[in-house]
């Protein structure tokens, strides 16, 4: 039974989060490191280059890596303090089993015994309920090799269709929109194309806090005359220095893009030649936006009409531009349409596939890009292949040495897997690199579902908030304890280098998977002896696929400071910018630059739909959620690093002074936000930089501090991304802090 073995307080007392701070060798300037390892940050999708200083198998500090071209030494506080996650008091050094009589509720277990226990539980559940009775949840912070291996493990070893990953909460709306519009899912341009843009359009991206290094690119463009347009319900640090700020009402981005297109058509700010030669579907789209007058756009989006007109004019008349967006427009029940709306105004301008003419989503997780290409997604096979496509299935089945009929079909998204637990269809679960009880919406439901599992095994380096529900916990590897490749927000494939060995009985994640396959007596296909061998197989598996990695090697990455995919041959340098006019791709076969048989990009009609949950008399406000600069995702790592916790110890409710006055709140008061699903009491922060009809809570915290107690599990029908960015809430003054903190 997957329940908390002892009280939450008792688990926390033994397994943390405790705070690590620099002590001993890490504080001693006299210590000379044994080695300096060039690698990358373990956190966001920018994957800044960093050098780790290592002494006696411990990362004792860092040195900026000035030569790595993307960040040239720059790092945000997370990257600076990341080294404190190693040699951490909370580090899991053994496997553990659920045992209410043990301190903290978990008893150490010898590694072999733990693996055997996991294998027998899988065997038992699958023999009783069929292979699909067991599910796998994975994550986009895993290297490409591990992501590939997890997909193969689920399909070949466990024979279950039920695998999905935490990128479901992150990049899938943009991915789906990119596939619909361009036929390929990758940032179209390297970040260097931001520098020459005349207009930089940023929709729903808190660049300064979530992708800090990108700030310098944006402001460098601005130094040379670029106009910066920021669309966000909150005036974030990047918006403070922008030229035009559009404070959009949460969930109304499609309306804004439609309204911009209306003005582009009205003023003939269109690239007719590009539209005619390289796209299809413009006429239908143009007809569909006929009603999106500036007045109506203003009414729906809550943005002043004058500002909408100004934005359209700057965008419409620019010669070069870069449009970027992030979760702000993607985390919606119409996230795909929001992204398509953005792509529509890019295609109508004709400004793509050229220097300083770009479009990109700012991918959120370390391997957000690579992790969504090689088969840990429920509907996908390696090389960004489609699991429902017979040709794709046949190719991968051949690579894996199995019969095509034995390859499971499409599974379901991560949230749907929890609904399947509810319905008794998934009985056992393995999770790695995923902390669903913090990161999924309406997470009180998620906690109940973990309790319902007959068997739950979690692989992690710390006992994360979800792993506390596990029957068996296996100690996996920190990023710096293994090697492998990762694909950055730019589409640049880079190499993570091993700095230290796994401590105690902890193992590289891929070894744990191998050992489990062995213990299940299903070792076929799981006999790699290192990540390089996994990459070699992935190169074959991705060959001729859309995400073609077949020409990528560790050596080429080192030589070139990364390789942009597609890279289809050993002598191919990679593809820095997509959609260049004369470019070749395997789908268009030379007919045009886009990844469709005719080589043309697709305009998509984007009908405006309001959020799943509109405000009402009882719930009159909109809640939007997001990150702060010093924490990452569910906080498993950053809530354990002292200096990062000092910077932001607790979540808060950000509100406008008008709202504060109406409710009788002042800065620092306790406030309770309530939705139809849950409530959350936190201190309020009163600032003029948020819409008065919207409140904001950062989401990195668990249990009573978790914003996801409130959020709604409404999902985009195509991408299945949850609607984290808007739901209906009410706010009231609270007499006291929450009962436990």
């Amino acid at each position, binding site marked *: 039974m997957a329940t908390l073995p002892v009280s939450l307080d008792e688990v926390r007392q033994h397994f943390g989060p405790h705070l690590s701070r620099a002590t001993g060798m890490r504080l001693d300037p006299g210590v000379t490191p044994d080695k300096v390892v060039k690698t990358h940050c373990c956190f966001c999708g920018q994957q800044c280059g960093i050098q780790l200083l290592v002494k006696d198998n411990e990362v004792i*500090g860092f040195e900026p890596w000035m030569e790595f071209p993307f960040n040239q*030494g720059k790092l*945000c506080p997370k990257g600076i303090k990341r080294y404190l996650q190693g040699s951490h008091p909370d580090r899991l050094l053994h496997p553990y089993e659920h045992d209410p009589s043990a301190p903290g509720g978990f008893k150490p277990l010898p590694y072999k015994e733990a693996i055997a226990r996991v294998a027998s539980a899988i065997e038992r559940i699958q023999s009783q309920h069929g292979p699909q009775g067991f599910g796998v949840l994975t994550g986009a912070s895993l290297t490409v090799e591990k992501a590939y291996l997890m997909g193969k493990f689920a399909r070949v070893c466990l024979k279950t269709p039920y695998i999905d990953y935490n990128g479901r909460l992150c990049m899938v709306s943009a991915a789906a929109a990119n596939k619909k519009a361009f036929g390929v899912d990758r940032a179209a341009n390297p970040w260097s194309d931001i520098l020459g843009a005349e207009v930089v359009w940023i929709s729903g991206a808190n660049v300064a806090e979530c992708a800090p290094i990108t*700030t*310098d690119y944006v*402001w460098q463009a601005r*130094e040379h005359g670029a106009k910066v347009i920021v669309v966000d319900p909150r005036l974030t*640090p990047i918006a403070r220095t922008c030229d035009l700020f559009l404070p959009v009402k949460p969930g109304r981005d499609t309306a804004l893009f439609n309204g911009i297109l209306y003005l582009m058509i009205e003023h003939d700010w269109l690239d007719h030649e590009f539209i005619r030669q390289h796209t299809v579907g413009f006429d239908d789209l143009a007809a569909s936006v006929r009603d999106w007058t500036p007045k109506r756009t203003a009414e729906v989006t809550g943005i002043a009409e004058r500002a909408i007109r100004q934005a359209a004019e700057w965008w419409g008349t620019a010669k070069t531009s870069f449009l970027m967006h992030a979760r702000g427009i993607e985390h919606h029940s119409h996230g795909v349409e929001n992204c398509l709306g953005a792509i529509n105004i890019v295609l109508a301008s004709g400004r793509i596939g050229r220097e300083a003419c770009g479009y990109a989503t700012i991918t959120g997780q370390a391997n957000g890009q690579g992790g969504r290409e090689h088969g840990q997604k429920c509907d996908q096979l390696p090389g960004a292949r489609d699991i429902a496509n017979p040709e794709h299935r046949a190719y991968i089945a051949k690579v894996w040495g199995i019969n095509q009929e034995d390859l499971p079909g499409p599974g379901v998204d991560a949230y749907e897997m929890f609904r399947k637990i509810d319905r008794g269809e998934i009985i056992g679960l393995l999770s790695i690199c995923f902390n669903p009880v913090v990161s999924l919406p309406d997470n009180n439901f998620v906690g109940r579902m973990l309790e319902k599992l007959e068997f739950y095994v979690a692989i992690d380096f710390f006992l994360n908030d979800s792993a506390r529900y596990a029957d068996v916990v296996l100690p996996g590897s920190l990023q710096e304890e293994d090697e492998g490749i990762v694909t950055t927000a730019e589409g640049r494939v880079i190499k993570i280098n091993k700095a230290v060995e796994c401590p105690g009985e902890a193992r590289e994640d891929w070894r744990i998977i191998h050992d489990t396959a062995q213990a299940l007596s299903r070792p076929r296909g799981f006999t790699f002896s290192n990540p390089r061998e996994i990459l070699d197989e992935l190169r074959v598996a991705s060959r001729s696929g859309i995400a073609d990695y077949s020409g990528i090697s560790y050596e080429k990455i080192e030589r070139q400071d990364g390789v942009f995919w597609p890279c289809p041959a050993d002598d191919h340098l990679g593809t820095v910018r997509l959609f260049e006019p004369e470019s070749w791709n395997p789908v268009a076969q030379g007919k045009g630059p886009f990844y469709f048989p005719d080589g043309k990009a697709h305009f998509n009609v984007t009908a405006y739909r309001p959020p799943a949950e509109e405000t009402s008399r009882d719930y009159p406000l909109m809640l939007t959620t997001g990150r702060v600069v010093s924490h990452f995702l569910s906080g498993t790592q950053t809530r354990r690093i002292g200096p990062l916790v000092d910077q932001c110890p607790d979540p808060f409710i950000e509100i406008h002074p008008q709202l504060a006055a109406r409710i009788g709140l002042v800065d620092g008061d306790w406030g309770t936000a309530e939705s139809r699903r849950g409530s959350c009491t936190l201190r309020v*922060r009163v*600032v003029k930089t948020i819409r008065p009809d919207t409140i904001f809570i950062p989401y990195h915290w668990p249990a009573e501090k978790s914003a996801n107690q409130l959020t709604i599990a409404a999902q985009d029908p195509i991408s299945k991304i949850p609607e984290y960015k808007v739901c209906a809430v009410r706010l009231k003054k609270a007499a006291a802090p929450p009962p436990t903190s």
Partner: protein
Amino acid sequence: MPVPEANEFFVDPSRCIGCNGCVQACTECDTHKGYSMIQLDYVDQANSPQTVPVVCMHCESPTCAEVCPADAIKRMEDGVVQTARKPRCIACNNCVLACPFGVPKMNTAMHLMMKCDMCYDRTSVGKKPMCASVCPSQALFFGTRGEIERLRPQSRPLNTFKFGAQIIKTKVNMMVPARSTVEHLDVVGALYEPTVGNQLEDSLSPNGIDIEEMESESGKP
């Protein structure tokens, strides 16, 4: 020369995103590991996300050193003003109170005033200071004047400041909009007695001094 002459330090608060990267990175410097010599302040958080990194400006004629009764604070030949010398510092706090930029901090546990030494250990071996190396938005920039002119055509460096009647020239530059005059809200004009400082002026300038005029006043174009 520990700091190559070609490289200078430039601060551009308009770029600061409040990420605290500089503050966190400063604690990683070998000469004062575990302590940050940088403060990051919100100007008025209720009204704006504007933040300002406060680093030592390394004055040509450092007030902190001038008011030190123990002669513990030294300005090196290269213009870097160093942390108080441990054997001399009497932890009297004069420097903390006198610095017009609010930079020096008293480490009460160590009875020592500590401040930025512009990463002496790094700059002396040709590296950039830690904070300017990592700053994601390059609000803190370390490079040549040529580089800053090429990279930031909309701004220009300023290193002359006026506090009441005191004019201070600094080694560190503050980036200001390229075409603007500097507004000085000078309460001194309304005082009965003038303040004292290292440069006393008989006649007080009016508000809205032109920068060129001020720079020529301090003897450098």
